[in-house]
C-alpha cells in the first residue's frame, strides 16, 4: 500500500502531571495520515491520558500537541479538532433505550454533519439490528455500534481507546475486521491497547509506553527484529531429562513448567537440537518453534509481561 507521509498528529515532549505524579512524562511521537497507529502499554501507563489530551478532554501540563495541525491547547483549535476527529472513549456505553439507528442519529446531530446513517450501519454490519435497542445487543455488537458512533461525523482521525477490552475472542476478531476495513478506506486510526497481539496484527506502527515514557517506537516487524530476541524451540513436556541433554550444547536452554525452552541463534541450531533429542530417544509431547512477537519485545524492554492489562 502506498502511504502519504503527511503528519496528522504531532506530539512533542508532552507532560501531564497530577500533583507530583507524572502520568505522561515527556512523550514525543508522530502519526501519519492513513496509518493504523497503536499506542501500547499496561494499564496506568499513560495511554488514555495521552488520548484524552489529544481529543481535548484533558489539559496538558507541558509540551505541545497538534491534531490535524490544530493546537490541542488552543480554544479555537479544539473546536476544529472536535469537528474532525471521531472518538471511542474507554468503557463507552451509549443510551440503552435508543435503537441502533436512533443512537447514531443522536450523535450525528451533535455534529450537524457526517456519514449517511444507512451507509454507516452497513459498514459495521448491523443492518439486521437497525431497530434493536442498544441494551438488547450482544457485547460484540455493542462495540461495533460504539465504533460506528465514533465514525458518525466521517472523521479524518479516529481514536479507539481499548476497543476490544472485555470482549470474547470472536467479538475481538470482528472488531479487528472492522478496523482492517477502516484501514482500507485510508482512515487514520489511533488505537490504544494492552493486547500485544492486537497491535501486532493491526498496526502499521507501534509506540510502546510504560510508566508515562515511550520505550519503543517502530513498525511491529522492526520492533520484533530489534528487541524481540530469538526464535525459540519449545520441547513440550520434555522435563528434566531433555533439559539436561540440551544444556550440553545450548547452555541458555531453560525449564518452564515441564517444557524446555531453547533459544535458537543460528540456522543450524534447530536441526541440531532435534537430532540430539531424537538420537538420544528423549521423551517429549511435541516440538514447537515459536517466533518472537511484541510480547517478547515488551518483556525484553521492561523485564515484565502484560497479563490482562496488568504488569507481571
Amino acid at each position, binding site marked *: 500500500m502506498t502511504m502519504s507521509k503527511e503528519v496528522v498528529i504531532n506530539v512533542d515532549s508532552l507532560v501531564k502531571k497530577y500533583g507530583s505524579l507524572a502520568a505522561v512524562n515527556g512523550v514525543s511521537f508522530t502519526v501519519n495520515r492513513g496509518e493504523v497507529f497503536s499506542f501500547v502499554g499496561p494499564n496506568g501507563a499513560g495511554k488514555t491520558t495521552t488520548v484524552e489530551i489529544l481529543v481535548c*478532554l484533558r489539559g496538558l501540563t507541558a509540551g505541545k500537541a497538534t491534531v490535524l495541525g490544530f493546537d490541542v491547547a488552543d480554544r479555537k483549535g479544539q473546536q476544529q479538532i472536535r*469537528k474532525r476527529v471521531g472518538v471511542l472513549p474507554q468503557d463507552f456505553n451509549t*443510551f440503552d*433505550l435508543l435503537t441502533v439507528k436512533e443512537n447514531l442519529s443522536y450523535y450525528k446531530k451533535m455534529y450537524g454533519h457526517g456519514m449517511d446513517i444507512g451507509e454507516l450501519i452497513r459498514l459495521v454490519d448491523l443492518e439486521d439490528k437497525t431497530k434493536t435497542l442498544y441494551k438488547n445487543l450482544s457485547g460484540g455488537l455493542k462495540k461495533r455500534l460504539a465504533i460506528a458512533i465514533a465514525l458518525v461525523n466521517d472523521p479524518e482521525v479516529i481514536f479507539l481507546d481499548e476497543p476490544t477490552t472485555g470482549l470474547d475472542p470472536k467479538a475481538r476478531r470482528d472488531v479487528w475486521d472492522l478496523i482492517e476495513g477502516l484501514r482500507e478506506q485510508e482512515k487514520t486510526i489511533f488505537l490504544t491497547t494492552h493486547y500485544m497481539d492486537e497491535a501486532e496484527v493491526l498496526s502499521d506502527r507501534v509506540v510502546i509506553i510504560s510508566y508515562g515514557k515511550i520505550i519503543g517506537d517502530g513498525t511491529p516487524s522492526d520492533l520484533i527484529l530489534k528487541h524481540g530476541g530469538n526464535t525459540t524451540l519449545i520441547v513440550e513436556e520434555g522435563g528434566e531429562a531433555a533439559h539436561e541433554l540440551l544444556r550440553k550444547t545450548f547452555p541458555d536452554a531453560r525449564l518452564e513448567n515441564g517444557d524446555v525452552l531453547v533459544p535458537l541463534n543460528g540456522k543450524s541450531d534447530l536441526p541440531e537440537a532435534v537430532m540430539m533429542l531424537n538420537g538420544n530417544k528423549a521423551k517429549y509431547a511435541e516440538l514447537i518453534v515459536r517466533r518472537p512477537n511484541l510480547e517478547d519485545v515488551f518483556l525484553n524492554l521492561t523485564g515484565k509481561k502484560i497479563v490482562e492489562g496488568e504488569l507481571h
Partner: protein
Amino acid sequence: MKRIAAIIGGALRMWFRSKSTLFWTLAFPILLMLLFGAIFSVSQDPRFDLYVQNQDIIDNETTQFSDMFIEMLNETGVLNLKMVDPAENATKYIDVVGAERMLIIPKGFHQSCLTQNASVILKMVPPEVDTSSATVRSVVYQRVEYFNIVTTGVITPVVVTIESESIVSESYSFIDFFVPGLIGMSLMTTGIFGAVGWNTRNRELGILKKLATTPLSKFEWILGVVLYEVVMGAISTGVILTIGVLLFDLRVLPNIYSVILIFAGAIAFPGMGMVVARFVKESDSADAAANAITFPMMFLSGSFFPLEMMPDFLREIAKVLPLTYLNNGLRDSMVYGNVSSALFNTVIVLAVGIFFIILGSLITNWRED
C-alpha cells in the same frame, strides 16, 4: 438549537420506553394527591398567623378597648399576631403579603363598645377549604365572648360581633388549595431527581465523555436536560390537574401567571439538580443525594400544610427555599387571584432557576482539567 432538540427528543423517547419511569412519573403525583389530600384535610396545629389592623386611633394613640382586645387575642398563645399599619389599605395589603386571614378593628371601636354595638371584621380564607381558618375563627369568637364578659360583667348583650369576610372570591374546596402545593412539589421532585439521575447515569456510561468530544457545549447539554425536565414538569402538572378535575371536582386551573411560574419552577429545580449532580459520582448515590435535597424542602415549603404550623426557626428556613416561593406564587395566582404577589414569587423562582443553570454550567465537570 438542533443539538438541544436532539437531547430533548432522545430523552423523551427513552422516558416513553422505560415502563417503570413512565409509570412512576404519572403515578407519583396521583398517589400523593390521594394520600395527602385525605391526611391533611383534617389536620390542625395550635399556632396560626393572624394579621391585625387596629384602625381605632385617637390623637395618634390606639384606644383602650382596642388595645385590650388585642392583648386578649395575644394571651391565647394560639395566635401569632402580626400588626398592620392602620394607614394600609387592608385589601391591598392582603394581596401583597399573601395573608390568609386578617382581623380589622374599625375606627370608632372604643366608642361603640360603650354603646354595646361594636364589631370587628375578620377577613379569611373560608374555613371549609382551610382548616386553619376554622380554628382561628373559633379562637377569635372565644376571645370576643371573654372580652364581653370583662367589659360588661355579663355574657349578654354582646358588645362585639364579628363580620366575617372571605378573602377568596369563589367558593373552593380543600383540594383547590392543595393542588398548587402538589404541583410545586411535583416540579421539584421531577426536576431534581431527573437532572441528578440523568447526569450521573450518563457520566457513568461514558456518554458525557463521548459528548464532550463532539462540538456540543456544556451549556447546550445543561439547557437540553433542563428543557427536557420542563416537558416532564408540564406532563406531571397536566396529570395532576386532569385527575383533580376528574376525581376531586378541582376548580382552580392555571392562568397565564401560574403557567409562567410553572415554567420558572420547571427550570429552577433541574438547574439545582445539575449543581447537585456535579458532586454525585455514582448513579447508586444519585437518589440519596436527590432525596436529601427534596425531602426537607417538600415539608418545609408549605406544600402540604401551612408554614405557620411550623416553629419560627423552620419558618425562617422556609424563606430561603425556592419551593416556598413557587408554592406561594401558585396559590396566589390560582387561588387568591393575587397577581402582584404571584409576580413577585415568579421573579424569585425565575432568578433562582437562572442562577442554578449558570452555576451548573460553570461547575459541571464536562472536560477534565
